[in-house]
Each structure stands twice: as structure tokens, then as C-alpha cells.
């Protein structure tokens, strides 16, 4: 969450800290972090792909996935990327009111998605797929759980950003803070784009 704090390279450059690339430190760090996260989710996805058919006595993916339901929640997450990007442009226009509005909408959509996931998990458990039921279960919950935690952290970040904008605690470049949160948020979305296809749509 350190990334949500504020500081800009341009401000620093007034004092002799110049920035060799002209790019913001925070943004570079965020993109590096996202590059790194590719390998994290890659590992979890590969584990799932390897184990998705190994169901022991538990249910098979095709028996429990509720594609229409997941499609809707995927759509919700996808649209939250739109609202996020609207928040970013609002912030760049220095329009605090709209920034906060769109950030809040994004958070609500994200929370809806997480809610959907919680609902999905409880249904699956009721249908007999626990975390320890089978390799399929373990790797499914690990992958989607990790993603869910990322979304939840994102929601907290969004709401915190709204909070500090409201209280005017951001003294640096507000637009950049929103943009950084946005990058993280979109990343969580693209991971889901992959998960939705590989995990849900392609039968094991």
C-alpha cells in the first residue's frame, strides 16, 4: 500500500533529485511489481491447469461450475475497469468529486465481484468441493482465492484513496495516486480475464 502515498519525481527534481528517465518512481515500481505478479499468477494457473482433472472422489469441474453466474460476475469486474479508468481521467482533470464518485463505484463493483465469489465458494462447498477434497479443489481455491484476496486489497485501496482525497491528505500528485491504484486494479482484472477463460470456459 506504500504506493498510494504521494510523491512525484517532478517535485523532487526542483531540488536536484533529477529523474534520469523522466518517469515517475512510483509508476516504475508499480509496473515492475505487476511484471512480477505475472509469474505469481502464472504459477498458480499452471498448478491449476496441471491438477484440474484430478478430482479424487470429489466433484468434477464440469459438475459444479455455474457458467452463467460466473459470466455475470466476470462482467461486473470487467466493467469496474471502465469506472476505474473514468476515475483516473477525472483525477487528471483535478475533478475531486467525480474522482471519488468513480472510485466508489469501482469499489462497489469490486465488492460485488468478491461477494459473488464468496457465494460461489459456499455453493461449491455445499456441493462437495472443499479446499481439501481433491487436487482440483485445492488448486481451484488457491488460484481464485489468491485472486479474490487481490481484489479485496484493491477494494480497500480504493476506499482508502477516497478517504484520503476527502480529507485532503494527499499532498503530492493526486492523479498519480489514483492512476497507480488503477494500474493495480486493471491488473487484477486482466488476471481474471485469463482465469475466466482457462478455468471456467475450457472444460477440464
Amino acid at each position, binding site marked *: 500500500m506504500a504506493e498510494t502515498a504521494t510523491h512525484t519525481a517532478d517535485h523532487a527534481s526542483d531540488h536536484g533529485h533529477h529523474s534520469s528517465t523522466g518517469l515517475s518512481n512510483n509508476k516504475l515500481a508499480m509496473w515492475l511489481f505487476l511484471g512480477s505478479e505475472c509469474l505469481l499468477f502464472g504459477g498458480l494457473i499452471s498448478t491449476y491447469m*496441471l491438477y484440474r482433472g484430478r478430482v479424487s472422489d470429489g466433484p468434477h469441474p464440469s459438475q459444479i461450475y455455474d457458467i452463467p453466474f460466473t459470466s455475470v460476475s466476470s462482467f461486473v469486474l470487467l466493467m469496474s475497469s471502465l469506472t476505474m479508468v473514468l476515475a483516473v481521467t477525472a483525477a487528471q482533470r483535478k475533478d475531486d468529486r467525480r474522482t471519488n464518485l468513480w472510485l466508489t463505484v469501482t469499489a462497489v463493483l469490486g465488492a460485488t465481484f468478491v461477494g459473488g465469489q464468496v457465494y460461489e465458494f459456499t455453493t461449491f462447498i455445499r456441493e462437495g468441493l472443499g479446499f481439501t477434497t481433491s487436487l482440483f479443489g485445492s488448486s481451484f481455491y488457491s488460484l481464485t482465492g489468491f485472486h479474490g484476496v487481490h481484489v479485496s486489497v484493491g477494494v480497500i485501496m480504493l476506499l482508502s484513496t477516497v478517504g484520503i482525497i476527502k480529507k485532503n491528505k494527499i499532498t503530492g500528485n493526486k492523479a498519480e495516486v489514483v492512476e497507480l491504484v488503477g494500474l493495480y486494479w486493471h491488473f487484477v482484472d486482466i488476471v481474471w480475464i485469463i482465469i475466466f477463460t482457462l478455468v471456467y470456459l475450457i472444460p477440464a
Partner: protein
Amino acid sequence: MSETAEHHDHGMSDAGYIKIALILAAITALEVSTYYVDFGPLFMPSLMIMMVIKFVMVVSYFMHLKFDNKMFSFLFYTGLALALFVYITALATFKFFIA
């Protein structure tokens, strides 16, 4: 680099973003339709292509990578490429793609 200079290259209007979102929504709808309609041999390739298109669109437009400095693309796509390389290779040694 000053703030304003940075914003100029982000050059997309809200309307543009909404357009992108609509395209994404349409592709998603198409993806979901594979669940109901039989695509035959096109099933896997079409799903993969649609997935990649969505991915790239979000990264390029929503995340501005298309307009931003190349350095960001380098950092992110290096990670992505390495991830694809190592994991596909590892799965290949499990004979995952043959079985």
C-alpha cells in the same frame, strides 16, 4: 517530466474508454456464447484469441501502456513473456499438452 506533459500522451477521451469497454463486453458475450453454441474445432483457438485480445486491450488502453513510455511496456511484458515461457515449458515436461 511535468505533469501536463505526461497527460497529453494518455490521449483518450472518456467516450473512447466507453467504446473500449463496449468492445470488451461484446467479446465477453461471444466468449460466454461458446458455452452454449458448439464452435467445433474453432472452440479452443477462438477462446484463446478472444482472451488475448481482451487482455491486450485492457493493458494497452485502460492501463495506457500503448501511450506510455516504452520502459513500462518493457518491465511488464518481460515478466509476462518469462511467465509464459517458463510455465509452458514446465507443463510441456509433464507432457501436459500431449495428454
